């Protein structure tokens, strides 16, 4: 057994092989080893949601997953879903509603909001709040964030936005 582990995984569609420290969590791996600085490091113990990324299509806390455990996994970060255009409408709505403010929580908020709209295309405001409850905004701009997500849900359902 070793404190260093070889992993090969796919990050934003690109195959990546690295030797990582066993204790290195996914978010440090993405930011420090791969230079993908879009996902943010916040509390580092699973509370704040700033490090939310996707592993095999499901959102996770990047600080509560070891990079060493992800051999063979598909990881997607804010860079990947931005480049693909998948969340363009969410990003536009966050800007239009001034839901970014300092921007620290935004990548995690966007991935969590995208996750909600995938499983529940017509969420109520209460359901939006509930799904985003694990993502902290220290600017406290929650109202604008919920507005932005609601706007996108309505638009995707083919109605004029409120």
């Amino acid at each position, binding site marked *: *057994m070793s404190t260093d582990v070889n992993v090969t995984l796919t990050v934003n569609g690109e195959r990546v092989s690295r030797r990582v420290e*066993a204790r290195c*969590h996914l978010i440090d791996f993405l930011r420090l080893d791969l230079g993908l600085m879009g996902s943010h490091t916040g509390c580092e113990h*699973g509370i704040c949601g700033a490090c939310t990324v996707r592993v095999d299509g499901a*959102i*996770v*806390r990047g600080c*509560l997953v070891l990079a060493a455990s992800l051999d063979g996994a598909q990881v997607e970060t804010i860079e990947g879903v931005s480049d693909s255009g998948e969340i363009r409408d969410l990003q536009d709505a966050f800007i239009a509603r001034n839901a970014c403010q300092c921007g620290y929580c935004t990548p995690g908020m966007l991935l969590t909001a995208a996750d909600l709209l995938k499983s529940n295309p017509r969420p109520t405001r209460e359901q939006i709040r509930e799904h985003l409850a694990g993502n902290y905004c220290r600017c406290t701009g929650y109202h604008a964030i919920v507005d932005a997500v609601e706007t996108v849900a309505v638009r995707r359902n083919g109605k004029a936005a409120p």
Partner: protein
Amino acid sequence: MKAPPFSYVRAASLADAFKLWSAAGPEAKLLAGGQSLLATLAFRLSEPSALIDISRVPELTGISQAGNAIRVGAGTTHAELGRHELIHRHVPLLAEAVPLIAHPAVRNRGTIGGSLAFADPAAELPACCMALDAVVIARSARAERRIAAAQFFTGLYATALGAGELIAAVEFPLARAGERSTILELVRRSGDYAMAGVAARAKVSGNTLAEPRLVFFGVGDRPVAAKRAMAAASGKPVTVETVAAAQAALDGDLEPPADQHGSPQVKRHLARVLLARALKRIAGVEEARAA
């Protein structure tokens, strides 16, 4: 903070896991979903020499019906539990509990086996297992044994698992006809650990409860079956008087310690409020009539 250094190895099978665990020695820990373990390592609350990753052990996966029980593999994530058809149909209390556990990103990784082995006294699933009379299937390299949920939780973050034993699965009896259940908790923010909570189950005819099971969490060093309150509510229609009698009896069931959420008196009050709501909800009694 960053976790202290440790080594890491991934088990490919249950036999492999026991072999690696034994070779790694007593300072090694098992890693399942990691949603509690990795947070505690970040705080450096423990410094394991090695983590044995059991998240890809095929024998620990899957939800299936086995006779009169639903068998849930220990590696089942909360998210899988919450969307599985067998759980919704036969163990609805678990389906109701899942949205109360942490947040979506945590539910995608955290496992039922991990939650039970960690045994946080404010967690939902340990209390649900007791309310449902679940059986924990413990495995060691040599043997398997069945532990009733009521005997499994032995103290603060302590369980009946012995050295070299892991949770392989949990078995839940199928809900019987006429049975109702619910889980209620009080939290400051959605997804937090509960200030107080209750998992409740009973056979209901009219508004009378038979053999109610009332298990409180967040009010002791482990989930607490409220035996006196259960006796007070058993076989009686859920009326104002029955609720008041059960609430009075509940005081004898609980010895809540003070914590960051409040004093023992606050905890007792919250538990009484939850008890009333749970009894009314499973009996289908309107709040206005019984309150």
